[in-house]
């Protein structure tokens, strides 16, 4: 099967010649797996019994009443094994790697959630695992570094460039170029060269598929709006996938505004970036006037990426999805609000989506329905929130 490699002008395969044959190999293996009922059976069994799917769609009644508008439903990806949506795609990609006969998994990670998910599936399948992580991120995400080590993965500290997620991805690509004969690169988001954006979307689309069925079963109709946070954009693309054809459903992606887009300290590639090429695909990027990539900033390390998935760029340009910006302070306020209103501590990434729902909900009548993708749980963020509040002089 020949796939479209671009989304409008975005996406593509902007990689060195050395990697192209590897990308073709991955794509062929993906096609073969997708047409094999055995692959789906094994994946679905693991998603059910190992990950704990399907994840609940929870009606947040107290929060809805407090905001006084639309009914808010939370897609509980935070309840997955390892605590976030990342496991959905890591598991499927690892199955693919095993089919291809690869014995080693590599991954890049920022906040550490994708690294933990990859280390987890590597343990599950008895594969060697090396996770590339920026030295700065290693320092600020110590608990996840320990989790990866306990799971048997080797965490490789990357100190080049800005020593954060983009540099970890650079290093993973460098490793892959030299080792692709036995190594599979599990990319954590809907970015990177084709076929990754397509493949990761497919493996995350279980979120949207379940949500659509669940909301119809619970309310008898489709939601008015679906909200998800966007760093690279994998949970958002997985959620949107269930509703792209339903034109009545408003799709809202939420980018991390950091200190505010106007300050230049943010991670809002669509709202504050320009089109360019990084890590194998064309997308909106944070870059200088000379085309050098700049470091992204957000209180949430998982949204801290200077690019964004190519399909999001396309959906933004065509208007099918809208991309809003939530700053650090709003995200942290939403983190507190959901914790106290519903007894659910959200990841700081997901708190951006909650904050957008807080803004959006009052604009609807109580018959309105908003679904928020609660992509991960907030246990990992306790120290980050505490130090943010100390810096900001908040209690």
């Amino acid at each position: 099967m020949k796939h479209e490699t671009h989304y409008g002008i975005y996406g593509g395969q902007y990689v060195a010649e050395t990697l192209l044959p590897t990308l073709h190999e991955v794509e062929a293996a993906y096609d073969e797996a997708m047409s094999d009922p055995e692959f789906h059976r094994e994946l679905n069994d693991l998603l059910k019994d190992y990950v704990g799917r399907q994840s609940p769609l929870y009606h947040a009644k107290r929060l809805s009443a407090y905001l006084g508008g639309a009914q808010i439903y939370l897609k509980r990806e935070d309840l997955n094994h390892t605590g976030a949506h990342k496991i959905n795609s890591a598991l499927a990609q690892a199955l693919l790697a095993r089919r291809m006969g690869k014995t080693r998994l590599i991954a890049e990670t920022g906040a550490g959630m994708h690294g933990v998910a990859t280390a987890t599936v590597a343990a599950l399948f008895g594969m060697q695992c090396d996770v590339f992580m920026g030295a700065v991120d290693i320092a600020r995400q110590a608990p996840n570094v320990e989790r990866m080590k306990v799971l048997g993965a080797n965490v490789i500290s990357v100190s080049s460039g800005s020593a954060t997620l983009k540099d970890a991805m650079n290093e993973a690509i460098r490793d892959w170029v030299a080792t692709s004969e036995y190594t599979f690169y599990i990319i954590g988001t809907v970015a990177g060269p084709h076929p990754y954006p397509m493949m990761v979307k497919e493996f995350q689309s279980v979120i949207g598929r379940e949500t659509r069925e669940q909301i119809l079963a619970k309310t008898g109709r489709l939601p008015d709006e679906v909200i998800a946070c966007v760093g690279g954009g994998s949970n958002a693309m997985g959620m949107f996938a269930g509703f792209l054809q339903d034109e009545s459903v408003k799709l809202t992606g939420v980018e991390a505004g950091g200190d505010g887009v106007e300050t230049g300290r943010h991670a809002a590639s669509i709202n504050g970036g320009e089109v360019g090429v990084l890590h194998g695909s064309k997308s909106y990027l944070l870059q200088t006037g000379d085309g050098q990539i700049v470091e992204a900033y957000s209180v949430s390390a998982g949204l801290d990426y200077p690019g964004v998935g190519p399909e999001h760029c396309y959906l933004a340009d065509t208007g099918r999805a809208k991309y809003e910006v939530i700053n650090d302070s709003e995200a942290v306020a939403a983190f507190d609000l959901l914790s106290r209103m519903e007894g659910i501590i959200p990841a700081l990434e997901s708190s951006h989506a909650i904050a957008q729902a807080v803004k959006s909900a009052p604009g609807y009548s109580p018959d309105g329905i908003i679904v928020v993708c609660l992509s991960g749980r907030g246990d990992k963020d306790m120290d980050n929130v505490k130090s943010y509040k100390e810096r900001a002089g908040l209690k």
Partner: protein
Amino acid sequence: MDRFEAVFERCRRENRKALVVYMTVGLPDADHAEELLCGLIESGADIIELGVPFSDPTADGAAIQAAGQLALAQGINLEKIFAIAGRVRARYPETPLILFSYYNVIFHYGLEAAAAAMKSCGIDGVLTVDLPLEERDEFLPVCEKYGIAFIPLLSPATGDERAEAILRGMRGFAYCITLRGVTGARESLPAELGDELRRFKRLAGDLPVAAGFGISSGKMAKDAACYADAVVVGSAAVKLVTGAVDGASGISAACKFVKELAQALRG
């Protein structure tokens, strides 16, 4: 006859292989970049690859990445590189100059504007590391319009059929990566180098073949040259500049190294 053809013709006449030297533009510092590049040519570099620094050089190893960061900290950008190239061109009318860049820097500058600037400052070719066959149609016609040679890249992972598609209609030379991995000096050449280069030579036909990646000594250059029309040296030369105590000694170390290589290719 363009500058590439002239250089390879001259090498044939002198019964030797061509020496291609990659250098990050902006080393040892912005003010002495021209001096370094001219020194490399004086020392025997037949073709110069003007390395454009990029923040995220995923095809390069530590040496070129560190050099790029150094050059960027000096405020180097494409505009300044074109100006430096123009001055080098004025002093050396015959040496082919190639802009060696990641695509984003050129894309952000503007494809048409970049190609026009290359032409006007005397750059002969461009090598965009991350613009493979699948994506090159957005830039290749622009290069052709301005008479800039689009230098094709082949790797050991490139199959014959794919290599033929990549090479069709190309001029200048074919840059052949001799190993699976990123740039960086190695101790020895890969064992299968001869087979790979013979394959590339066969596929390239009349187009000269340059072997690159990992070459760090005169002996390695000479060995690689057995199977190719040219050898490329990058990281090893770059490291001599970045590792020197000051700019002047970096320039002289790199020039001395290039002299040795040139000598080895003649010997």
